[in-house]
């Protein structure tokens, strides 16, 4: 086990009687990219601000590289941060913005100039040194903000929803750029976002937060495919939720609509007669019987949406509706609304939500 570089230990934050972060713990390894993912008000930014030193924890401890930084001021922590609103200094040029932290840290001018040029090369904006922030696009401003944050070689990089204010196309390219710079510099990074696609695409691990707690911490693969709670399953990705009743707890069989599905080893102490909430990702479902899929359910096609390369089909099964995507094939006409249909899936892919 690698010694954690950042260790957030049982941190809690309350404002009066309102507790916004409750008993949050997380260890981050050196060079790891961890995302805090959750809806607005889940406490993800508060945890980040406590790591930065802008908020003081009501309880708990934050340790970076073996040093307790819980009570240190933000300017004593050697942490870099990129803000949602860019926060470039409007009175300074791009080069002066990047050099700000270097000058404050006492670096001499020739070294600072060299470092600024190096940073501008890394973010691929070497020609922008003399521009002012108002002369740059949002994406360019955020890249400058990133360069400014990493120029003083901080121990830890904090990214507070840095892509939220950008348009979709820039968001995708910039997130890839952030990840590549982070890997290149091997800097331990915490990234706060409410966008699951962002978190899934660039993180080593994700902490899904809800109600001031970490609901689940895991790799993007684990979070998506093995959500630990109902909230994680619903928040990350699209999910088809089905109601089922345990028919034989010992054998692990569950009745969905009028068909039996085997969920052996997944019932987690449920008794016969218990009602369960089951979930299936759209990509785990096929239309019609397919080899290798051990379970199936019958229903009726209720909606068909032609989306070009993909056809989205909704199938009514009892009181539930299941959504699935099939690839468009010019040789095969899309299914028609009202047709009887069978969907198949592997019972291993069915999630039991607790």
């Amino acid at each position, binding site marked *: 086990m690698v010694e954690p570089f950042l260790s957030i230990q049982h941190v809690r934050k309350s404002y009066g009687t309102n507790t916004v972060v409750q008993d949050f713990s997380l260890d981050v390894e050196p060079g790891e990219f961890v995302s805090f993912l959750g809806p607005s008000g889940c406490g993800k930014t508060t945890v980040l601000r406590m790591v930065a030193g802008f908020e003081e924890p009501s309880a708990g401890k934050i340790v970076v590289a073996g040093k307790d930084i819980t009570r240190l001021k933000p300017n004593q922590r050697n942490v870099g941060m990129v803000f949602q609103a860019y926060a470039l200094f*409007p009175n300074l040029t791009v080069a002066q913005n990047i050099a700000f932290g270097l000058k404050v840290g006492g670096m001499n001018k020739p070294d600072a100039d060299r470092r600024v040029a190096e940073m501008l090369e890394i973010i691929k904006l070497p020609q922008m040194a003399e521009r002012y922030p108002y002369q*740059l696009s949002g994406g360019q401003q955020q890249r400058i903000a990133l360069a400014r944050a990493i120029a003083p070689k901080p121990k830890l990089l904090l990214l507070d929803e840095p892509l939220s204010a950008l348009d979709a196309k820039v968001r995708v390219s910039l997130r890839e750029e952030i990840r590549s710079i982070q890997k290149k510099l091997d800097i331990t990074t915490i990234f706060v976002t409410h966008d699951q696609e962002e978190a899934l695409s660039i993180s080593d691990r994700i902490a899904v937060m809800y109600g001031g707690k970490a609901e689940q911490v895991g790799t993007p693969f684990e979070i998506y495919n093995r959500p630990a709670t109902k909230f994680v399953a619903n928040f990350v990705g699209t999910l088809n939720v089905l109601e089922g009743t345990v028919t034989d707890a010992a054998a692990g069989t569950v009745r969905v609509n009028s068909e039996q599905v085997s969920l052996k080893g997944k019932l987690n102490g449920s008794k016969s007669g218990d009602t369960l909430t089951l979930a299936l990702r759209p990509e785990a479902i096929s239309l019609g019987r397919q080899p290798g899929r051990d379970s199936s359910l019958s229903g009726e096609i209720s909606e068909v949406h032609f989306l070009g390369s993909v056809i989205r089909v909704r199938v009514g099964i009892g009181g539930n509706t299941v959504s699935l995507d099939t690839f468009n094939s010019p040789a095969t006409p899309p299914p028609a609304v009202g047709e009887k249909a069978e969907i198949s899936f592997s019972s291993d892919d069915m999630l039991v939500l607790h």
Partner: protein
Amino acid sequence: MKSGKFWAWVVFALSAAYFFIPLLATFEFSLRLRRGVHSFDAYQIVLGDPRFQATFMYSVIAAIFTIILGVLVVVPAAYWIRLRLPQLRPIVEFITLLPLVIPAIVIVFGYIRMYGSNSPLPFLASDLGASSLLVIGYATLSLPYMYRAVDTGLRTIDVRTLTEAAQILGAGWSTIITKVILPNVLIAVLSGAFLTFAIVIGEFTMASLLNRPAFGPYLQNIGANRAYEPAALAIIAFAITWGCMSLIQILSRFAPKSANRPN
């Protein structure tokens, strides 16, 4: 809406006439010192008067110290209120408005009672002390203008995020205020400074009751004893005030532009 525009111009012309006709009349009157011809004799007399130069210089120096004191008090206070104590803003705004509703004469009588030569803080026992008290009094009088100008400037920038961005880069409070906040509200501070300057140059009550050799009492003295020179002085005072206002306009073009509001 042509008729609407017409009436707007009528109102504008009437207002301009109400403002400019007395000013033009005063200017014209100030040129009549020499019988039968228009001349700048009154201006020559005024500008050549050693008392004009001495009192004007005194008021300029008092204005400069007032501005420095105002900036030192108001900028950190307004900044801190925006950053950490926004709930106090209405109270502070009310306090800064008090000099507009409490007459200067009341304030100065308070000063004389509080800081007389027999008091524990005998400001009035020496010339330097009395002048310092005058500067403090002027800073109080200019508070409504200085505070509002600075607060408006702070409103145009994201004070909290810029502060946090500077803090996380290692900056302490003095660096944040001098390198980040002040340069970004400099034009607002200068606006407040020029308004302060205009107030101090013409102020009479405090300077007179504290017996200071300022420009205000000199204006009053000339006005009571001469005919044409007060008119010339009034025009000079107007020119100084308008000069200050023009400087505010010119300097505002050099204001740091925010990325969100580039113009």
